């Protein structure tokens, strides 16, 4: 209920003075309703150059085949599956924020869920391009579907984890898309009712005729909650099934039962890092500091710290179990990872994923924006290395030493990977221009309870425990968007 006031001990989720419902709409729609600024154009130009590189490299692959990649007889999976797992993992944060945090009633999700869900969709698109790319004959991609055919019918191999992946990824993508779009409807309607001419007509079609009547909202909330409830096990299942691609094989280094939880933790870890990479820039460029506050940034950094530590424990457990199993091949696979020719990849992974995120134990670092941004990039580099280490170093020395090789990427491998980052940013930058990057309706919901001004009013009324007020004003010190002078007299 809107009139209920939240405890003063909780930090505010919306900062700033004189925030009204209209101001939220104006602030969030500013980038949608106005011409983009220079920063957007610079970013968009760079991103589309990357996307162009992707188009070229992937077309090259389709034309000449996967022989253009650096793969060889021993290493049959390399940058393609590394890129695929990396992108799918990044996508997981969006669903985690929109679904899991909704179930746990974490209101701070309200201002970051929209862009995180968009990020999920774009990341899964990037991941899917690797699936099609590595098929060799992508025009036969429909062979992964159980369609009746003239070979029997010869059905798909349901016993394969790769088949499970087809179902998991396609379900994940389509359910995320519908979750995201349904959530967008009220905000698209806001744009529609403020626009004129052709823009109004376009947004009118996109808004599905949303009006915001009582029944619509009531059903909307039911749908959101149930979608959150079913997306939560879905998102956990997706990376579990991705890890089956490895865990169900008999390859030393892959055949481990720890993979599903370890992959899921890694996915959340890298996903939150990518959200951080995007939002720390976006809040500045789009002027959303009052909605994406230091509290949000610090909370995300805490999640990065937690999941990074889980990943670290998983690495060490994996190593210990390899030794403890007494299986010579398993032991060699792990010693080779840490001390073999790919030692640098292993130690990059260890440094970026396990050591540097531990810096987030320090509050000063958690609330330092440039530092948090750099660390988020380091986490993503580390998570790319994790997949590279799992895939390439496990494969490159197999059971027969005469077939031991190294993997060297070609320009096509590099082009597709760098290009997919460009593709991702192109889609994200277009998104923040045409659709609201913050879920306005959900942020408006917080205005009367969790905003700084509502809490200021409570303080001014003066019926609060002074120690609570002290705690609260101390907590405000970390915010970069709060004017502390108004609290001095209190």
């Amino acid at each position, binding site marked *: *209920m*809107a009139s209920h006031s939240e405890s003063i001990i909780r930090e505010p989720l919306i900062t700033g003075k004189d925030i*009204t*419902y*209209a101001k939220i*709409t104006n602030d969030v729609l500013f980038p949608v309703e106005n011409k983009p600024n220079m920063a957007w154009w610079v970013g968009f130009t760079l991103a589309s150059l990357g996307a162009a590189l992707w188009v070229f490299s992937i077309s090259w692959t389709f034309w000449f085949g996967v022989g253009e990649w650096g793969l060889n007889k021993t290493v049959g999976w390399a940058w393609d599956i590394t890129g695929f797992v990396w992108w799918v993992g990044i996508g997981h944060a969006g669903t985690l924020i929109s679904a899991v945090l909704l179930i746990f009633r974490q209101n701070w999700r309200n201002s970051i869920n929209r862009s995180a869900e968009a990020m999920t969709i774009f990341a899964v698109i990037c991941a899917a391009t690797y699936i099609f790319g590595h098929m060799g004959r992508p025009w036969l991609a429909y062979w992964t579907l*159980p369609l009746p055919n003239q070979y029997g*019918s*010869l*059905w798909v191999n*349901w*016993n394969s984890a790769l*088949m*499970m992946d087809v*179902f*998991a990824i396609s*379900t994940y993508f*389509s*359910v995320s898309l*519908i*979750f995201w779009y*349904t959530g967008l*409807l*009220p905000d698209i*309607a*806001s744009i*529609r*009712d*403020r626009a004129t001419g052709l823009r109004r007509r376009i947004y*009118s*079609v*996109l808004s*599905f*005729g*949303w*009006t*915001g*009547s*009582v*029944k*619509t*909202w*009531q*059903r*909307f*909330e*039911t*749908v959101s909650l*149930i*979608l959150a409830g*079913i*997306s939560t*096990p*879905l998102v956990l*299942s997706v990376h579990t099934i991705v890890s*089956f691609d490895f865990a169900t094989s008999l390859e030393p280094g892959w055949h481990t039962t720890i993979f599903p939880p370890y992959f899921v933790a890694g996915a959340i870890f890298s996903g939150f890092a990518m959200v951080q990479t995007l939002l720390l820039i976006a809040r500045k460029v789009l002027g959303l500091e009052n909605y994406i506050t230091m509290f949000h940034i610090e909370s995300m950094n805490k999640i990065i710290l937690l999941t990074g530590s889980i990943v670290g424990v998983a690495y060490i457990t994996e190593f210990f179990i390899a030794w403890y199993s007494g299986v010579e091949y398993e032991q060699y696979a792990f010693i080779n990872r840490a001390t073999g020719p790919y030692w640098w990849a292993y130690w990059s992974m260890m440094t970026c994923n396990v050591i540097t995120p531990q810096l987030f134990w320090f509050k000063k670092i958690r609330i330092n924006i440039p530092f948090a941004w750099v660390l988020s990039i380091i986490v993503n580099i580390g998570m790319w290395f994790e997949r590279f280490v799992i895939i390439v170093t496990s494969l490159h020395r197999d059971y027969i030493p005469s077939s031991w090789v190294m993997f060297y990427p070609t320009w096509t491998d590099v082009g597709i990977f760098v290009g997919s980052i460009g593709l991702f940013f192109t889609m994200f930058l277009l998104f923040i221009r045409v659709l609201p990057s913050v879920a306005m*309706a959900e942020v*408006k*919901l917080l205005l*009367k309870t969790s905003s700084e001004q509502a809490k200021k009013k409570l303080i001014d009324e003066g019926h609060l425990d002074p120690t609570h007020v002290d705690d609260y004003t101390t907590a405000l010190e970390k915010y970069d968007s709060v004017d502390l002078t108004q609290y001095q007299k209190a």
Partner: protein
Amino acid sequence: MSSTKFILGCFDDPDNMMHGIENLQKNSIPIYDVYTPMPIHGIEAKLGVKESRLGYAAFCFGCLGGSVIFSILYYTLVHDWPMNVGGKPHFAMPNFVPFTFEWTILFAAFGMVFTFYAATHLFPGRAPRVMDLRATDDRFVIAVDAKGNVPHDDITRLLQEAGAVEVKHNERKYVSYE
């Protein structure tokens, strides 16, 4: 006879709007609908809107999805083309779990969302039936059917007493059809 079709009480605060609803209900004036830029918790109880049954729809669609894919799996792996993989049983149910799970979720999600769209008349290209353009921005709008609900001045007064910033007497039901 006045040409007013709808009386709209526009509020800038959801709590005042709730008072407006109470004021109208105390005077037995039926409310046509309420349009808000965000969900208002507790309003359904006040207006007597029944709880949504979309959860049942989701459950049924989920069961359907799980059964469909399980049947496909059974047909292909056990009935149509059983394969001998190292003498293992054809009906290897653990392998069925991921597929059954994914399609249960897929059908539940799409079934429920499309039921929601159908029940609420949401589809691409539907003409928005908007009574006040600011109802998706910063106005909380109570709409009262003016026909048969007289006198209009009393309704206006009741809304204003609750704190309506503006009361409109619209001669058209929807303003979005220009």
